């Protein structure tokens, strides 16, 4: 036992050093806590500044978007709040809190919510990272099962059946990836400005078309200079690009923190 004592001692010292060193995001957590305190005390603008400061550092998390949105609801920035609730749901689609608060906010703004077919809603229960993981895991599982089944001399049929099931799961996961990718190529756009009306043409003097209250979520169809053609409720119309923001297209996730997201492609 005594001969292991030096080793144990070294391990303890190393462990202590590791735990003693502050984790790289400790300061960020501290500010997160301060923002919560400011929110509780009714200092909503201070809370917003703290959350926004963290976001400007180029890191995101569903909790950050959720809390940012809650603060914006208190500040009356309902369009921006809907945008951040949707961003939180993009990162964590099954979050019941974000869904509930989004519904509550839309109830206030009477914003248009998109309606998708049932299979799209089903696919959107997972985010792109989850679908990608499923696709890759099931793909390799399928390959592994088929390889084992082929290499074995007896070739049991149950292996083939399981491989078929995992292959189907791969296809489903692949479809999920494609659905999520489509929402990054043609992102949803949340109207953040008030009293927005789409127009029939990308011209400021074109005839107004449909009303889009703040918080309405529309789908990008086409771009033309500083105008976006969007679809909502079966109708399409043009809006200026500065009245809304896209809900985290994938390109924005690694383009770095920007004041205004760019819509890709």
């Amino acid at each position, binding site marked *: 036992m005594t001969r292991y004592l030096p080793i144990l001692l070294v391990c303890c010292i190393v462990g202590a050093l590791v735990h003693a060193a502050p984790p790289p995001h400790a300061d960020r957590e501290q500010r997160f806590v301060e923002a919560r305190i400011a929110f509780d005390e009714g200092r909503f603008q201070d809370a917003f500044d703290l959350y926004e400061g963290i976001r400007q550092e180029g890191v995101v998390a569903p909790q950050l978007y959720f809390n940012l949105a809650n603060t914006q609801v208190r500040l009356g920035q309902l369009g921006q709040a809907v945008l951040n609730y949707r961003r939180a749901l993009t990162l964590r689609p099954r979050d019941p809190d974000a869904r509930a608060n989004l519904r509550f906010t839309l109830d206030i703004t009477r914003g248009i919510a998109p309606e998708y077919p049932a299979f799209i809603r089903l696919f959107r229960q997972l985010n792109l990272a989850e679908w990608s993981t499923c696709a890759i895991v099931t793909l390799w599982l399928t390959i592994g099962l088929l390889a084992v089944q082929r290499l074995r001399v007896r070739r049991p049929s149950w292996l083939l059946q399981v491989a078929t099931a995992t292959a189907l799961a791969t296809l489903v996961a692949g479809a999920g990836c494609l659905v999520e990718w489509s929402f990054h190529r043609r992102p949803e756009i949340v109207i953040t400005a008030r009293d927005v009306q789409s127009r029939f043409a990308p011209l400021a003097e*074109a005839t107004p078309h449909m009303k889009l209250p703040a918080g309405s979520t529309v789908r990008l169809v086409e771009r033309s200079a500083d105008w976006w053609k969007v679809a909502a409720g079966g*109708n399409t119309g043009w809006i200026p690009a500065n009245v809304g923001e896209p809900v985290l297209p994938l390109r924005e996730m690694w383009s770095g923190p920007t004041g205004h997201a760019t819509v890709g492609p």
Partner: protein
Amino acid sequence: MTPCQHRWIFLTAGWLATIVWAAAATIEFDIQPRAVQLGESVTCRITIRGAAGAPAPSLPPIPGFEVTSAGTEQNISITPAGQEHSLTYTYRLTPREAGEFTVGPFTYALRGDSVELPAVRIQVLSAGPAAGTVGASPQGSPLLFATLQPDRPNPYVQEPFYLLLSLYYSQGLNLDRDISLSDLRTAGIGVGSGEELPGGREVVSNQLYDVRRFRFPAQGLSAGTFTVAPRMRVNLIEPRARSRDPFFDVFGDFPFGRRQVQPTDIDVVPLQLAVRELPAKGRPSGFAGAVGEFTFDVQAQPTELRVGDPLTLTLSIRGRGNLDAVTPPAIVLGDGFRVYEPKILPDASRGDQRVFEQVIIPRNRDATEIPPIAFSFFNPRTERYETLVRGPFSLALQPATADGPMVVQSSPRPSVVIPEALGTDLVYLQPAPRRWVSLASPPWYARPRTWALQGFAPVLLALVFAYARRRDELARDSAKARRLEAPRSAREALVAATTALETGPAQEFFESVWRVLADYFGHRFNLAPGEVTREEVALRLHRAGLPAADIQQVREFFGQCEDMRFGGGPAVRQPLDEPSRALWRARLDELSALLRRCERLRR
């Protein structure tokens, strides 16, 4: 309406065969073309449908025309509704002189009824330039031109209309069917996909032209004057210029024929289209951009219900206009109703109608009436705004049942919210995350490398499949497996022989050499150990096509091994001396080369 538009209407109506009904049978009467040159003929067709055995019509003499029968055609088709019978009588009318003629009206007797076939106007021009000549007509009219006209002048913003493109070409010209059109779309005018209409013939400036017509749906997107200047390219089919090369003249123009295609650009006179703004005067407050002529209907179901139960309003808008842009009228309800967003019913919304559905829920017993619902639109024909009002709709409300679901809703809030403490309406804040996602670099699933690596999976599987297949194949075919084993076993045996040469007694060496021969040829020719003899191996090598000298060398190896193994005497228990070892080193090299030559044999 301009003369051009008059001509469009006349020609469109005139092209359509006149259809007359008589006692459950239909009679179609048509004469085409309606404009010809002297020397050409027109065809008159009278088609009787649904009357088997109908008598042939007898045409009276037509002044200015020579009438000849061109045959009869009978068709019987079997349909789910029964048998359909049609009879077509064809006549050729050849004009004798130029001018404008009216052919008809005719009377046709069918089953005791007299049916009048209306008159048709035909224009006959004097004979023009000979067909195939190229150049301006005697009057200076172009041989090829195109016009672009709207079907109504000065449309309003969002009013659907058609752009009519007509391609005129002289009878002396042959055109390909393909036409390319560019720059038809312009900012401010939305233009859809076009369709080709039936063509015909037309007289312009006393010149006869063949005409191809195209129609494009269009819509003014904003008010203003816009220039539509499309460019059109057609392919002229011309006779190929004869080559002067005596060699090619011998063979003629085979195999390319005597014709060539010449792309030709046509200048379409730009169209200045003035799109009018919708008048501000008289615009209803509920106007949302609908332009056209519409009907509006509202159904409310059910009208007898309990407080808290939903009822559905079905709003149907039918007619001609910008239906794609039509939105359901806003329904102003008080606090007594909970209102949900209207939804369009895609299945019910066809080309000429849009149907919306909106759910509302009465919250209390005061909500006994749905107020009138108004739909406003601008009618370009009357040039006025029209508002169609439906309702009000009375509701017979029963109190909500005690155990029924209660509608608990906050009162509607205005769109502008003054910041206020909302209490516990929102779910509270979430704690800090354990992990942060950095935006500095793409996530792993967004990197192309990640997905490129997955491409190895099917490659790996293919390799496994190939390996398993080969393994199974060798397991089934032992001869092939032994054939593939031969070189490896020979190499191993040669290494053992080389070692035995240097270190062991001669007998061991020669046993090793024998092992090389027996292993290699035994595997090579799938022979049992006892079957590997000098003669058998020589025979197999001869059949495989090995040269005789090599076969003899194999025989010598076999012979030497057998002699030393079985007849070497006590000397074989001693190692070989150095000269013998040197000799056998060279012999082993020869044996190795010999076996490689045997390996290259196909059999």
